[in-house]
Structure formats: structure tokens, C-alpha cells
């Protein structure tokens, strides 16, 4: 049988335990809107019993620990989905900018292509007309500048993406540094069995940020966590972070180096992977598609033009500036060679009024000049390709967004603070505190009674 003092001590322990619980509840409510916060729960346990002879008395309550509720596996899945999501977002944003240039409008390549052929057609009804010959050269000029404008814009976009790469790498470095510091704090607290929840939550938020930038694999180890990219490049190992470096390649684009190795092409997730894929693959591929069309047009026009005769009866020269060998750069250097309208080789029989060669030039409209397709068909396919890329990626982005939302809901259902729940808890702990306080005062009265025994 325990002493009155013992009971008093038990009640005081209860007061302290409930106060601790109120503290946790208050902290939960305070962090209702804190990003990455995992709700906490007081863990109350029975104190070790007191054994007196055959009797065992309970010895009250202890606030053993405060635990955070989180699901590490779920966190990993969320991070993985965030990588996917932000990569897709970068791709969709990038390709949407390209798409604008391929939207059907007056002035896009398709439209200028039609106008150019139409100007030839117009000339064929009146082949000696100088104004109409001017018209052909102007329409050809508009066509070539449409190509140049698109390529110029895409190149501009590539330079902008390149700036973003540098910025993202800087962000990665700042985040990995912070994670390494947190690792130190977490390790030192956990070594002395302290609760590092607050730091864990913060680290989790940072890993989330990192996941938006590049693909991160998390490996739990004794000295904290190790972060690597999915191909094994170390980013953080315990208390150490490894900086990524950027260095321009000969073409002026930044490559990413980790401990001396070029990891540019090996990134598969996050914004950086998206930026690099746009910069190094998608945009160049669109340009080289345009190169093929420009080179095909220039070559076939020149060939036919050589076979005709100009207004002075001389054989035709190059109509377009011949494309560079190997096609690369054909779109950006696409230019009209002929500037004197009289030098347009419309005639097929050396007489000025013949339009025979114009007929042959016009026939190119339906000839396979680029990858086995007519110019318009090839361009239509290009429009399809660009549009399809945006459509496919934004569908994937929507799907990934829904998955992410689901995962975040799951996370929130485990770790999120519910005000109803906290209100209930607050009431519960308050009542328990009041009751324990009542016990203290009751025992105090009992002790009074005991002290005054025999006075009367």
C-alpha cells in the first residue's frame, strides 16, 4: 500500500503528463498550415507498478514520448511522383512555346509555303511580268524568313533553358547543403535518443524540393540518409553534401558535372531532366526536322531551276542558296539566291514568254522532297509531331498530377492535423488535468485529516 505522499506524487505526474499532452495538441494546432508538418501524438504509458508484499499498486501515468505520424514509404512515392510531375511540367511548358509557332496562322511556314507556290502559279499565267516575278522572289523570301524565325525562336528558347539549367543546379546545391546540415542535427539528437521530428519534417520538405529539381534516391543509413541520383551520383552522404558543377561545352551549353563526371545525359527526373531533354533533344530534333524540309525544298528547286532559262535566255542558276552539305543548319541558313527578277528561270525553251519551267517548279508541290513526302505533307506531319508531343505529355502530366494528389491525400490522412481531432483531444486532456488537480486537492485534504488525527 502506497503512502499518501506517493499518491500525491502520482497525481502530480498525471498533471505533468496531461500538460505534456496539451502541449502536443497545442503544437499540432499551431502547425495546422505548416508545409511538411507531421502531426504528433503523446504516448502515455502506465508507470511501473509498486509491489508491496502480495499487492501490486498502479503507479500512475508517464508521458513516455511524443511521436510523429508519418509513412516513410509513402513519402518516397510522393518524391518519385514529384520528380515525374516536374519533369513533365517542364516538357509541356517548353513544347507549348514551340507549338505556338506551328499553330495555323497567316505567316506560319505552311501558309508561306502555299503563298510561294501560288506566286509561281500566278506568274505562269503571265511569265514575262516583272511585278509577278518580284512577287515570286518576295514570297520565297517570306518563306525562308518563316523558317529562320522559327529556328531563331527555338534557339533562343534553348539559351533560356540553358540559363534555367544553371539556376536549377544552384538550387540543387543549396538544398543538398541544407539537407547535410539537417543530417548533422538529426544524428546528434537521435544519438542521445531525442525526438528529431521537427528536423525530419524539414528535411522531408527539402527532399521534396530536391525531387522537383532532379531524380533523387533516398537511402537510410546509420549516419542519417544518403541521397543519390537514380544513376548513383552522390548528392548527400550523412553530413556531407556534394556540389554539382556546370561547365559550358564547345557549343556554349552548360553540362552538369558531379565529382568530375559529366552526368548531364543521365538525369531522368525532375525539372533538370526536363530542361535538358528539351534543350538537347526535343528542340534540336524539331530544328533538324525543319532542316530536312528546307534542304529538300532548296535542292529540288535549284535542280529544276538550273534546267530552265531566264528572261534573257540564259540558263538558270541557283534559286535558293544551296543548303549546307549534311543538311544540318539548312533551315537557319535558308535564303533566296536570286534577287534580279529577270534571272528567274521560268522558260523551258529560252524564249522569254515560255512558262514551261514554272510548270516543273510548281510540280515540286506534289513531289517527294523531304523524307519521301511532299512539302505540305511533311510540314503537316511536323505539326502533328509537335502537337502530339504537347498533348501526350500534358495527358501524362494530368495523370501524374492526379496520382500525386491521391498520394498527398493519403499522406495527409496519416500526417495531417485535424482540428476536430485536436479539439476532442484538447477537451480530453483538459478534463484529465482537472481531474488530476482534483486528486491533488483531495489528497491534500486527506493529508490534512491525517496530520490532525487525534487533535480533537
Amino acid at each position, binding site marked *: 500500500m502506497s503512502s499518501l505522499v506517493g499518491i500525491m506524487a502520482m497525481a502530480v505526474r498525471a498533471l505533468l503528463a496531461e500538460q505534456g499532452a496539451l502541449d502536443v495538441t497545442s503544437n499540432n494546432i499551431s502547425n495546422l498550415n505548416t508545409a511538411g508538418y507531421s502531426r504528433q501524438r503523446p504516448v502515455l504509458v502506465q508507470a511501473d507498478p509498486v509491489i508491496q508484499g502480495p499487492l501490486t499498486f498502479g503507479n500512475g501515468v508517464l508521458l513516455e514520448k511524443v511521436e510523429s505520424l508519418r509513412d516513410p514509404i509513402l513519402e518516397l512515392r510522393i518524391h518519385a511522383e514529384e520528380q515525374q510531375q516536374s519533369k513533365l511540367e517542364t516538357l509541356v511548358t517548353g513544347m507549348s512555346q514551340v507549338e505556338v509557332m506551328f499553330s495555323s496562322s497567316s505567316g506560319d511556314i505552311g501558309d508561306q509555303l502555299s503563298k510561294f507556290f501560288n506566286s509561281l502559279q500566278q506568274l505562269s499565267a503571265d511569265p514575262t511580268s516583272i511585278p509577278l516575278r518580284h512577287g515570286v522572289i518576295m514570297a520565297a523570301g517570306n518563306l525562308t524568313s518563316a523558317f529562320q524565325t522559327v529556328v531563331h525562336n527555338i534557339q533562343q528558347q534553348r539559351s533560356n533553358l540553358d540559363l534555367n539549367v544553371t539556376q536549377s543546379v544552384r538550387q540543387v546545391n543549396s538544398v543538398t547543403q541544407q539537407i547535410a546540415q539537417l543530417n548533422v542535427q538529426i544524428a546528434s539528437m537521435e544519438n542521445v535518443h531525442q525526438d528529431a521530428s521537427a528536423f525530419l519534417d524539414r528535411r522531408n520538405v527539402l527532399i521534396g524540393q530536391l525531387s522537383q529539381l532532379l531524380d533523387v534516391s533516398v537511402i537510410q543509413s546509420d549516419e542519417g540518409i544518403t541521397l543519390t541520383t537514380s544513376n548513383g551520383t552522390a548528392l548527400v552522404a550523412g553530413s556531407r553534401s556534394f556540389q554539382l558543377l556546370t561547365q559550358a561545352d564547345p557549343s556554349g551549353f552548360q553540362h552538369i558535372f558531379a565529382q568530375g563526371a559529366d552526368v548531364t545525359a543521365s538525369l531522368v527526373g525532375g525539372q533538370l531532366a526536363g530542361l535538358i531533354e528539351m534543350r538537347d533533344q526535343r528542340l534540336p530534333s524539331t530544328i533538324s526536322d525543319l532542316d530536312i524540309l528546307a534542304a529538300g525544298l532548296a535542292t529540288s528547286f535549284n535542280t529544276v531551276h538550273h534546267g530552265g532559262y531566264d528572261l534573257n535566255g540564259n540558263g538558270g542558276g541557283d534559286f535558293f542558296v544551296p543548303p549546307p552539305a549534311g543538311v544540318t543548319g539548312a533551315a537557319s541558313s535558308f535564303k533566296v539566291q536570286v534577287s534580279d527578277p529577270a534571272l528567274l528561270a521560268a522558260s523551258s525553251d529560252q524564249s522569254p*514568254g515560255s512558262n514551261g519551267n514554272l510548270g516543273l517548279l510548281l510540280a515540286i508541290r506534289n513531289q517527294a522532297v523531304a523524307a519521301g513526302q511532299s512539302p505540305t505533307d511533311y510540314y503537316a506531319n511536323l505539326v502533328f509531331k509537335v502537337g502530339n508531343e504537347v498533348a501526350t505529355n*500534358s495527358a501524362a502530366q494530368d495523370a501524374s498530377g492526379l496520382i500525386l494528389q491521391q498520394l*498527398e491525400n493519403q499522406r495527409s490522412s496519416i500526417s*495531417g492535423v485535424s482540428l476536430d481531432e485536436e479539439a476532442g483531444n484538447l477537451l480530453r486532456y483538459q478534463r484529465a488535468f482537472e481531474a488530476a488537480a482534483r486528486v491533488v486537492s483531495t489528497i491534500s485534504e486527506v493529508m490534512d485529516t491525517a496530520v490532525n488525527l487525534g487533535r480533537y
Partner: protein
Amino acid sequence: MRVNPNTSNDLLQALQRTEKEAETALLQVSSGHRVNKPSDDPTAAAVLVGNHARADQTDQYLRSITSIQGELRTADATLNSVVTTLQRAISLGVQGANGTLSDANRNSLADDLTGIQAQLVGIANLSFQGRFVFAGTNSKTTPFVLDATQPSGVRYDGNAGVNSVAVGEGFQLQVNVPGSQLFSDPGAPVFQAIQDLITSLQNNIGIDAAVTGVRAAFDHVTTQRVFYGNALNQLESQQTFLGSVKLQLATEEDKVGGTDLAAALSRLSDAENARTATLQAAGQIARVNLFDFLK
């Protein structure tokens, strides 16, 4: 099971989705196009590229037809006056064949015919917008020149070239007849026939045969004129055909890339309703929690 206590994220996502739907529907209604950028429907966007190209081409065929028509009509009218002039030459020849005429009378007829010859050369040198219509493809050079060294008295500086202009998909229309074919056909040479008539009148020999020669030339030119009439007819029916092609292309464009107005409007009102409902629900949920009921 514990439920997700924080519903605001779901609500925001739902609101964003309905807003996006409303925006898309609104754009479709206001622009009249279902495909406003390639990603709206990549296949349709590619089809539309071809469709626009064909529509532009059709417009161009129609413009070409208009500009050819002017030239063909002028050439046709000119040949008509050649025919009239040849008729006059024939009647002068018939007059000259009358045996009662004096040498002086026949000579004056021959002088008249010399005038007609010069007139014919003038007519045959017709130019349209700076081009000689009957010069073959050598259309920058005056095709017919009076030249005493030639047996017919007229030299042809044009060529035998013909031009064709596309006035439809795979439809090349010949747009000129070279002057050599019209005026110097070996079977019925116009200038030679007039020259022969002049000579025979001056020498009073073989006038009848010479008149027959002019008649043959008259028949020849009349026959050649049919070409222009034919070409003009063809152009007219081609114009009608191209008009229907344009209509069909416009219909196709609307089918592939146009907005189904009724559907778009109903999607718009659906999206707006969904948005209102979501906002209402959000307002209800956020209003109370347990704290409101505790004292």
C-alpha cells in the same frame, strides 16, 4: 480509418479543373475553332494544314483563271476581226475576178488588198499587257513584220511555243496558239494567200485560184478560233467546279476543326455549374469544426 482532414487541396484542384474546362469551352465558342493549337487535336491539326494548302491553291486557280480569261477573250475577239478582214479580202478578190474590170480598176483593188495585208499584220501583232499574244512563247518580240524579201511579204519572228497554265489539280490548259499556226499554216497561209491575190490581180492571172486560197485561209482561221471558244468554255465550267471544291473544303474544315457550338456551350455551362457547386460545398465544409461547439 482516418480521413484526410485537409480538403482544401482537393477543392483547389477541382476548381482548377473546372476552370480549365470552362476556359477551353469559352475559347472554342469565341474562336469558332475546336483546334486552336496543334495539341488540341494533333491529327486534326495535320489534316487542317493540308486542307488550308488546298484551299489556298484553289483560290489561286481561280485567280489564274480570271487573268487567263482576259487574254483569251482579247485573242478571240482579235481573231474575229481577222475573219471579218479576210471576208473583205475575198469580196475584193471576187470583184477583181470579174472580167469586165480595167487594169486600173484591178490595180486599185490590189492596192486595197495591200492595205488589208498591213492591217492584218497590225491585228496579228496584238499585245495584251505588254505581251504579244500570237508570238508563241517569244512574246516580247513583235511577231509579224512586213518584209519584201519574204514570198508572202511578211516575216514571222515569233516561235511555235505554247504555254499551259494549271487551272485545277492535274488540269493544264493550253492558253495560246502560236502565230505560225494561225497565220502561216502550210495548208492555208493567210499572208501568202493575200499576197498571191495581190500579185494575181496585178497580173490578171489566176485570180479565181487566188481567191480560193484566201477562202482556205478564212476557213483555217475560223477553225482555229474554235480553240479560244473552247478554252473559255472550259475555264467557265472549271470556275464553277472550283467553287464547289472550295465549298467542300470549307465544309471539311468545319467538320475537322470547327466548334460544335451546342456541345461547347453545354460544356461551358456544365463547367460553370460544377464550379459553383464546388465553391458552395467548399463554403459549407470550411464553416464549422468541433471548436465551435465546445465551451
